[in-house]
């Protein structure tokens, strides 16, 4: 999208750090999250889940449960729409969602839902769930991505593969991606050193602290209300309507406060089940996942197996690069292998590059987006090889990356030419940072990595209604997952020229705005921000028109300055500035309500690059890693509320540290998840981490009125590689598998076994 007027300085609000509007609610316990809502006459729902990784469902006996005191409804797959049919690959996505929400003929992973019950109390529902007996015929299973591609591996679902998958591959390989350019053979031949390595990463979970929760009401008349914690309630509305055979508009969905999502709450899991129970019982049903259910049954990210080959000359020029990325995304298509492939070499200007991706199905839960889905793993593999090349050739890791860096006009590894981008600026800022100049202590290693994420625009609708007293009500449709209401209110206040405190931003329900895409792809501050600015400008235009009418001059002879309509141009005449509140005070008598709108699909989301610096030390006797210093440098385009931008940088780094060192899905021989809780799924705790330093680089995005780029996701792209490089440099041995757990590091050090 070409913008006729971009403003990147001279702001009154933008770049300041006001208190968030929902702050008091959240520090007093008043804020209502998914599980905090109740309804009169409400029942509690509980889902029965498969204990098997792969099993045919022979029989489900619900009779004992149904006879129990307080039980009001039991549902199975038969209670959902049968109008949705399977199709290959992502074309059958709605059927895939239905199949994931409630199993049909087969349970496809440990934790797959097979039935559900609603009763008058949570305890009664739990007791009833235990009384539902399911007879299974256990089938062979596979959970590892490489094993799932081997001849003879159990077939998850035949006929799922898209036509693009090369012939002769196992039916579990369901989608294929290939992109690149140039002559690889010539490129590798021109290199002084070629390194080719294989890397593996385990699946990690988004690890939001709030389990999925919803409160559903659905009557036999097909009219429903749904309250849930989600990153995208219009998507929930659309999916639930399809799965239950409802008219979309008859289901009103309200997004609760959301206790973390990171991509994991872009998908629908329990909401259709709660609605089905409610429809059957004709009462509201509350359904809240346990932590164990969250780990077993919602989407972790893909696990990967990757081969990366890079050639470099002695002066640090990359001559050719190739990556093969095998990603498993559970028992359904959708592992983000094309993102893995496309992000892999995005930071570099490459004449010869090729990337291949495979989407592989296994007996694991359906993967869901996790903060820049697919990109962090690619960076781990690619940036590790670059680090190794730098080590072997005696090159500085930042200078080498600068030498090969993508810039404006560079042809990207996956085709298009880059617009204005800020990679070089992040590398230069990292090089100039005191961290990079600080000498390492004995036993420490330093790691550098770049990272890339596309960012996204997407369907967006915003409404800004002015009140008689001159304040503004801003309704946006993207759930606030990290303080976005503050930045929306700041942008509206900036445009209207009124104090920040005079704008109240709320997340509207599905009945109050047009369709809004999910809060994903780092799109909120970009797309809802753009929409807010445009809606405010629409309101300003109407305010100017009222002033023009009052003054009896043409509308184009009025302009908006500092919250006032002022006459502009030679024939406008001499009128005192008319403040916003004076116009709105009379709006009832001068044409009625003044409301600004924006409904469109912004397509100018600028990509974002980052460079991270990490220092780590490794206990050579136990293999334990300590991250001692961490610096994030990232291009934000324009930081609307810098404190929350820093928060995104720090949060992504912290999640990356967990992914790199300790977090992993551990499956037993029986295909069951061994660590479905925060005790053994080890996310970083406060005492694990250092302070995380941040540098906000601002290279304006040409596609946003103020130059905003999304910042939420790029921050998790470099940490895996940056930490792996630091740990490898500290340990003196290259770590090629995540997590770099103490047993794995000790083994690499050759200290045992």
């Amino acid at each position, binding site marked *: 999208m070409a913008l006729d007027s971009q403003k990147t300085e001279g702001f009154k609000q933008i770049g300041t750090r006001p208190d968030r509007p929902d702050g008091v609610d959240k520090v007093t316990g008043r804020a209502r999250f998914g599980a905090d809502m109740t309804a009169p006459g409400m029942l509690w729902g509980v889902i029965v889940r498969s204990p098997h990784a792969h099993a045919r469902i022979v029989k489900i006996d619900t009779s004992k449960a149904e006879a129990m005191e307080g039980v009001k409804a039991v549902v199975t797959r038969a209670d959902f729409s049968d109008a949705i049919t399977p199709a290959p690959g992502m074309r059958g996505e709605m059927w895939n969602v239905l199949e994931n929400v409630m199993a049909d003929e087969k349970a496809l992973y440990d934790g797959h839902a097979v039935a559900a019950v609603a009763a008058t109390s949570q305890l009664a529902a*739990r007791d009833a769930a235990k009384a539902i007996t399911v007879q299974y015929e256990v089938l062979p299973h596979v959970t590892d991505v490489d094993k799932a591609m081997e001849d003879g591996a159990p077939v998850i679902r035949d006929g799922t593969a898209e036509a693009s998958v090369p012939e002769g591959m196992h039916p579990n390989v369901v989608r294929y991606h290939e992109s690149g350019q140039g002559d690889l053979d010539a490129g590798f031949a021109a290199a002084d050193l070629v390194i080719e390595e294989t890397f593996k990463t385990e699946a990690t979970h988004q690890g939001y602290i709030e389990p999925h929760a919803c409160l559903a009401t659905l009557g036999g008349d097909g009219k429903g209300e749904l309250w849930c914690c989600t990153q995208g309630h219009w998507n929930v509305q659309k999916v639930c309507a399809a799965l239950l055979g409802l008219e979309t508009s008859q289901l009103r969905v309200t997004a609760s406060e959301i206790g973390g999502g990171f991509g994991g709450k872009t998908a629908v899991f329990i909401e259709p089940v709660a609605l089905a129970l409610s429809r059957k019982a004709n009462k509201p049903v509350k359904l809240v996942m346990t932590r164990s259910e969250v780990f077993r049954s919602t989407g972790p990210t893909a696990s990967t197996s990757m081969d990366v080959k890079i050639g470099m000359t002695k002066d640090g020029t990359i001559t050719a690069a190739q990556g093969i990325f095998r990603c498993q995304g559970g028992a359904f298509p959708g592992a983000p292998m094309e993102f893995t492939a496309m992000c892999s070499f995005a930071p570099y200007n490459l004449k010869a590059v090729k990337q291949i991706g495979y989407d592989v199905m296994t007996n694991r839960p359906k993967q869901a987006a996790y903060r820049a889905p697919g990109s962090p793993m690619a960076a781990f593999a690619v940036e590790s090889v670059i680090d190794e090349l730098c080590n072997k050739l005696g090159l500085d890791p930042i200078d080498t990356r600068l030498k090969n860096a993508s810039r404006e006009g560079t042809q990207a590894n996956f085709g298009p030419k880059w617009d204005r981008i800020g990679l070089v600026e992040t590398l230069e800022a990292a090089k100039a940072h005191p961290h990079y100049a600080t000498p390492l202590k004995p036993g420490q290693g330093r790691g550098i990595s770049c990272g890339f994420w596309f960012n996204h625009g997407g369907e967006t609708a915003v409404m800004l209604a002015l009140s008689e007293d001159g304040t503004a009500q801003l309704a946006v449709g993207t759930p606030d997952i990290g303080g976005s209401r503050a930045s929306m209110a700041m942008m509206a206040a900036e445009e209207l020229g009124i104090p920040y405190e005079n704008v109240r931003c709320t997340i509207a329900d599905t009945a109050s705005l047009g369709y809004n895409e999910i809060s994903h792809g780092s799109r909120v501050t970009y797309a809802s921000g753009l929409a807010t600015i445009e809606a405010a400008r629409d309101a300003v235009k109407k305010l100017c028109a009222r002033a023009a009418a009052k003054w009896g001059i043409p509308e184009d002879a009025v302009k908006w300055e500092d919250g006032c309509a002022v006459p502009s141009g030679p024939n406008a005449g001499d009128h005192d500035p008319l403040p916003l509140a004076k116009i709105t005070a009379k709006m009832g008598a001068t044409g009625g309500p003044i409301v600004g709108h924006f409904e469109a699909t912004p397509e100018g989301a600028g990509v974002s690059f980052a460079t991270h610096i990490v220092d780590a030390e490794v206990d050579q006797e136990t293999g334990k890693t300590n991250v001692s210093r961490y610096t994030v440098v990232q291009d934000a385009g324009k930081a609307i509320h810098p404190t929350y931008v820093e928060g995104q940088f720090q949060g992504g780094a912290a999640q990356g540290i967990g992914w790199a060192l300790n977090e992993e899905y551990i499956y037993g021989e029986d295909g069951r998840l061994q660590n479905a809780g925060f005790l*053994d799924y080890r996310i970083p705790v406060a005492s694990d981490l250092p302070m995380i330093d941040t540098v906000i680089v601002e290279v304006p995005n040409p596609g946003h009125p103020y130059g905003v780029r999304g910042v939420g996701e790029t921050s998790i792209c470099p940490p895996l590689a940056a930490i792996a490089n630091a740990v490898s440099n500290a340990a003196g041995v290259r770590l090629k598998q995540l997590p770099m757990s103490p*047993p794995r590091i000790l083994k690499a050090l050759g*200290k045992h076994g």
Partner: protein
Amino acid sequence: MQYHTPATFEDAAKIAFDAQGITRFLAGGTDVLVQLRSDLVEPDTLIDVKKIEGTNNITKNADGSWTLGVAVSGAEMSEHPELGNDWPGLVEAMDLIGSTQVQGRATLTGNLCNGSPAADSVPVMFATGATVSVTGPDGTREVAVEDIPAGPGKTNLAKGELVSAIHIPPRGQGGGDAYLRFIPRTEMDIAVVGCGVNLRVDGDTITEARIALGAVAPTVVLVPDAAAAIVGTKLDDAALDALAAAASAACNPIDDKRGTVEFRTHVAGVLAKRAAKIAYDRAKG
């Protein structure tokens, strides 16, 4: 589930003896409630012992020994002005269990009777030579701590029996104890390996030692060979190497989600050396 709050250990023992199905005793609840919530164990009878008089007391006896009530929390142990001077390793081991929140509730007795081979307070309890009072239908007897665990999640207590007090011996002259564990994070994990050391010195020479390992066998294990490796030495490098070798040799661990056989075996030796050095320094004052 029936919930009882008896006023005496004798009443508690009687309720337990008469109960049908699964019985659990509730002190800090940090294991019982987790098992209940996770559908692992739903007791038919739950006996809360905290209403019994004296269960929150920490008492230093005339001979210098200590008696700890069964509901004494980790936080109460850490905050006690004297216990940590005598037995810093024991107090530190207890303090390692879980979060600040868990410390407000978790107890030595619960940690022992939960029967986990990875229980943090148990190796050092073994090393101190602690005993427990066990009250049952036939009265109260005193049992060595190392006779309580029987295997993962199991104890040697009979139906109707419960631990009614913990006794820690007098510290005496020239003594020092220590506990170290390996966890992948800095907090909140279950020990992958744990090592408790208690020793006594005469001048620079170690005259007595008891060493126990956690998470390397079906129960916490005393390792007499490890103790023998350092008794009579000044904890020089050769003694430390012998200690590490003896500790590793005593390991009979499993591969699981927390660690491998090789890792546990190796790190048991590393921790034994490190813990012995701390205990030795403490013993020398």
